[in-house]
Structures are given as C-alpha cells and as structure tokens.
C-alpha cells in the first residue's frame, strides 16, 4: 500500500468541508441522472445500454478497420489524421505545426486525453500560450491543479477559492459571486478565442463513416475553439471510434443523461474537416490526432478490453461510495473513480499503485450505472488476482499468501475447520474483540476474524452454528 495514496486518502477524509463538497456535488449528479433515466423519461434506457455495449464491443474488436475508415473519411473532407504513439509525439506534432504556421496562442477545450499527456505543460515550455477555456479547467489551469472529476473538474473549490485565485492571477478585484466570476472569465477568454491561432479539443466520439469529431459541452467554449481559430486539432484516444453517425442515436442519449441528467447537453458539434467551399467561417485546417499511449496494451488483453468502452460520462465516479469519500485527487493518475481504478493499472502497470484495485468494496454501483455496461467489479477482481500473482513472483507479502494457503487447506478439511474454530473461540475473550486489533491479520484465524480487527464487536458467541445444530 503506497504511502502517497494512504496520505491523500487520509487528508481528504479529514477535511470536513471537502467531504461535504464532494458528497453534495455527487449527490446532485446522482439525482439528475436518476430523473433522466426513469421509465417515463427514457423507456429504452436498458435497451440503449445493451446496444451501446454491443456497438463498442464491435468497434473495439475491429478497431483497425474503423481507424482506417475514419482516416480515409477525414481526408476525403479535407482534414488530416495524425497517429501518435505517445505524449511526446503529440507535443512534437503540435509544436511543429505551430512553428510552421507562426502560431503563438492556443485555446483549448476540456479534454481528459490532453490531461493524460500533459499537453499544456509540454507546450508551455516552448513559448506557446495554451489557454483552457472550459470555466472549470480555466480555473484549474490558473491554480495549477488537476481535475477533480471528469465532468465537474473544480468541484473541490469554493467561490472564495476562485475569488482569491482570480484576484491573484488576473489582477482583478476579489469577486465572490459565481455569476460575476463567470463573466470575468468570459471576458478574458473571449479575447483569447478571437486572437487564437489554433484551437485544440478532445473528442467525445470519432465517427468512422463520416470522418467526424463529435464534441459535447454546455458552455460554448468547444464551439468557439473550433470555429474562431483557423486551425482545429482534435486529440483523441483510438478507442473513441464509433462506426456510424446513426450510432449517435444511442450514444448521445446515454452520455448527457448519465453525466449530468441532461437529455442533450447545450451544444453537440459534429465536425468533419475544415470549412467547405461556400461556408463563411470555420477553421481552414483540420487535424485529428489519434493517440495510442498504451491503449493497444489494453486492447491486447481480451479479458479487460472492455475498459476501452468508456465514454467518460463520470457516472461511475458519482455513484462510487469510495470516490465519494476520497475524491478525485486521491487517485494516482488523471483518471479517477472506478474507471480510473481499472485503467490506471493497465496503462501504468500494476506496480504503479498495487493497492488501487483493492480500494473498492465491489458494491457494483458503478456497473449498474455505466452506460456502456463495463463490468468494472469483474475487472477489479482480475486485477487483484494479477497483483497477487506478481507478489508471488516477486516474493512479496509471503505471510498473507501463507495465511491464505493454510486457510484454504483448513476450509477443505471440515474437521480441521471445526477444530480451528473452536480453538480460536476459546482463546478469544467473549467480551468485545478489542484484543484482535493488536493481533496481526495474518494469524492462523479464519479470515472472518481478521476482518473484525478494526471494529467494536458484539461478544463472540459461545457456540458455533454447527454445535447448536447438533443439539437441536
């Protein structure tokens, strides 16, 4: 268990204000989603989930085909696809293009993929100004912080935090009314949109049959990012593909509702290529960066490949009782919550944070709300088995392994099991189990007793069930 993870968890649990902020924000999103997927609001909800899962499965299983189809259609509409293996290649491409075009200012709309590759940091080292334009992301950029949540990136900050931040970084008066804070940001960012040379976005979906990038948002910053500057670069993981424009009839219905309870977000943009002949405005150049950065690794693992189905709605975060306690910043990578817990070990290797797959009670709330039906608990269980296999190979955690070996052996020998239970019962005082806290969990006791080591217990029963049953 890493010290860093433990410390971050502890810090978050100890911060009462933060606990309240996380709980309230997620409670609101839970409620919104609930009302958006009732039998009346969306009668086909379960069928849509099944369809979405089937579509993602099909696309992922034939990803090479769809990548090529997408690429061909982007080109047909005057755009260009750039394949990038990692963060460096993306940065090199953007920097190269910026240099060629003498670009100095970039505006960006919200993209977890660009967070994943630290794009802003990489660009800033080259005298290229890259400004986040989503209000929450803009705030975080000024504060030099990572997003707290996929959909509500600044949920951990208060209006007073924002007021202080703006006063400090923008030199404005300390304003604490959210509407006015938004106006301040709007003013600053408007100038940036109109002066920017390049607009960089992510992509919610890549549509293979259209060579199109689909962007879903509420503020309008993605539209501005893709309409005002003369160059648009969309950076997207290769898993974002869907086969046809029609498939949006399934995905768009699920994304907004699962994320924020909206039937449709305020703006949904379907962008294919630079402006066409006759169109009055829009970018003159259109690029789609298709990013690997480890996704082909996940692809190769058929047992966990479904992790790539994710459409980044954030519903699993909202419903996860663990996320709701530890928040987004406790997680070791940019992706937090249940989806973060399953993709982080796959991207980074299980040694990166070996306790992460265990930081779940496997309650299944995530799987219940996932619009594309990723069986997150099943993947967590597979990852746990992998962690233990790795420990065995590395000779780690020998005592725990031995305890379970003995435990299994005992459980396969009923008479031994009865004896062990009786011995343990006679040794444990029948008063509260406080003594157990000092006993290491790996002692030769049934694991049940190990689980009890942190709690105030009722007195241990004098007789086990089987003893009582025999007397019945």
């Amino acid at each position: 268990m890493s010290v860093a993870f433990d410390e971050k968890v502890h810090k978050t649990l100890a911060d009462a204000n933060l606990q309240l902020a996380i709980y309230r924000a997620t409670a609101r999103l839970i409620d919104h989603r609930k009302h958006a997927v009732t039998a009346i609001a969306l009668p086909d909800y379960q069928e849509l989930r099944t369809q979405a899962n089937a579509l993602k499965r099909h696309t992922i299983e034939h990803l090479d085909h769809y990548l090529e189809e997408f690429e061909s259609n982007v080109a047909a509409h005057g755009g260009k696809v750039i394949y990038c293996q990692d963060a460096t290649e993306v940065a090199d491409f953007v920097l190269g293009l910026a240099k060629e075009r003498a670009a100095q200012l970039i505006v960006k709309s919200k993209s977890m993929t660009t967070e994943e590759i630290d794009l802003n940091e990489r660009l800033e080292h080259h005298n290229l100004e890259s400004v986040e334009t989503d209000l929450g992301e803009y705030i975080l950029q000024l504060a030099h912080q990572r997003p707290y949540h996929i959909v509500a990136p600044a949920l951990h900050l208060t209006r007073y935090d924002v007021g202080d931040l703006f006063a400090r970084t923008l030199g404005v008066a300390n304003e604490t009314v959210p509407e006015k804070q938004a106006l301040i940001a709007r003013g600053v960012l408007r100038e940036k949109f109109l002066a920017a040379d390049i607009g960089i976005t992510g992509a919610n979906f890549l549509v293979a049959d259209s060579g199109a990038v689909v962007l879903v948002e509420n503020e309008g910053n993605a539209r501005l990012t893709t309409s005002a500057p003369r160059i648009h670069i969309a950076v997207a993981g290769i898993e974002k593909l869907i086969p046809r424009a029609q498939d949006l009839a399934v995905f768009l219905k699920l994304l907004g509702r699962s994320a924020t309870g909206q039937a449709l977000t305020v703006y949904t943009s379907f962008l294919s290529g630079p402006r066409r002949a006759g169109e009055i405005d829009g970018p003159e150049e259109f690029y789609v960066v298709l990013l690997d950065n480890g996704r082909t690794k996940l692809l190769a693992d058929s047992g966990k490949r479904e992790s790539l189905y994710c459409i980044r709605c954030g519903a699993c975060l909202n419903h996860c009782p663990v996320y709701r306690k530890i928040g987004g910043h406790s997680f070791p990578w940019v992706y937090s919550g249940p989806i973060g817990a399953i993709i982080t070990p796959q991207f980074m290797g299980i040694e990166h944070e070996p306790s992460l797959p265990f930081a779940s009670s496997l309650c299944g709330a995530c799987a219940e709300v996932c619009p594309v039906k990723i069986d997150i608990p099943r993947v967590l269980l597979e990852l746990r088995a992998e962690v233990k296999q790795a420990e065995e190979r590395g000779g780690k955690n020998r005592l725990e392994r031995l305890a379970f070996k003995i435990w299994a052996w005992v459980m396969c020998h009923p008479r031994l099991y009865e004896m062990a239970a009786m011995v343990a019962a006679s040794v444990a005082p029948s008063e509260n189990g406080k003594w157990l806290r000092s006993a290491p969990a790996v002692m030769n006791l049934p694991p049940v007793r190990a689980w009890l080591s942190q709690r105030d217990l009722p007195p241990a029963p004098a007789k086990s069930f089987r003893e009582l049953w025999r007397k019945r």
Partner: protein
Amino acid sequence: MAQRVSIFVTCIVDQLFPKVGLAMADVLERLGYQVDFPEDQTCCGQPAFNTGYRAEACQVARHFLKVFRDSEYVVIPSGSCTSMIAHHFHDLFPGDTRAQRAADDLTPRVWEFSKFVLEVAGVDDVGAQLEDVVTYHDSCHALREFGIRDGPRRLLANVRGLELREMDSAEECCGFGGTFSVKFPEISGGMAGTKIDSIVRTGAKTVVSLDSSCLMQIQGALARAALPVRTMHLAEVLASR
C-alpha cells in the same frame, strides 16, 4: 414426504452469528421443508477470491461443489456468498470443463434465503410477528447481482407489528467489502458512518439486512457511535413469533 432443502449457513454465520442459521432453518421448517445441514460445509471461497488468491479460492470451491453435489436446493442467508457461488465459481476452473459443468449445474440450485422463500416456497407471509420499527439495508450483491429489492420489503411488510421505514441511502454500500475493510479501514469506516447517519434519520430501532457481513459492519459502527440501534438478519425477523 416433505421437500428437502440443504442449507449453507456461511462461515460467518457458523462462527459469529449462529442464531441467523437457526432462524433460517426455523422458517424453512415452518414452510414445510425438511432442512438438511451437510456437516462438511465450510466456506464459499469468497475471502480468497476477493483478495486475489484464485488458486486458494478454487480449492475451497471444489470442496463446496463436492459437499452440495446432491442437494436439490441450497439455501443461503447471504447475497454475497450466493453471488460468489452462482456467478464466480465457473471462472475459478479455467480449462477444467468438468468442474465448470459442476459449477454451472450448481448455479440454478443455490438460493439466497429471501428469494427462496418468495420464489420457490412462493410465500410472502411466513406468519411472523415482531413489534418494532425497522429500516432495511440493501446488501450490494443481493441488490445488484440478483435484483433483490422488493422481495425482502414485501416479506417485512407482512410481519405483524412491524413498521418499515425507508432510509435515504438504503442502496449505498455499508463499506464492508471483505478484504476492503481490512486494507482501507478509514474509508470503510467513513462509508459505515454515512450509512448509520442515514439509519438514525429514520428513527428506526433495528436495521435489517440479508447479509451478516453488512450487519456486522453496521453494528460495529453503531456500537462505536454508542447508538441504541440493533441489527437483525431478515431470517431472524421472519422467525420471530
């Protein structure tokens, strides 16, 4: 000749909450079943499986399959153990088709207790009586893996003298999660705290659930907070007269 049912009481009930097993047997007998307790039973293997020790879980699962091979019904006072057997046994035997077949064969024969009462016995009123104000906690596995939600509430509604009050986060996890509560006691405790706050808001005197592990977790948190609320397994409520 009364229908025979086997009971798998689970290791936690066997060792820590034997009354739950007895209560379940009482109810089953009252419903006209002859209850058989195969003495060689031990555990379903879930502790090892959840912790990532599949080989060990596999051994224990094999033993389980042997013990219950001939049981027409295996009734279990736990959603999580039933889920382990019904949903995970198959995957413990990769490449061993015989064992997989045995696991698949067992799946339709294992029944979480409340589901058995409602769907096999076909009864939603077992003639129970208990004067109390209770609230019901939805155990995660029962709820999400088996869709068990309305069933226990119907059973509780028919208990004479019983008032059932819904808590506002009945479906939220209590924070036990087996190995999770040992490895992440602070988070687990935090989740339990949220649960008992919800319980307290109902004013109920008793929390009912169909998983002893949840009840143990909740009871532990209630006791630590010195709250005068007790926990009862659904079987114990239904056995009350």
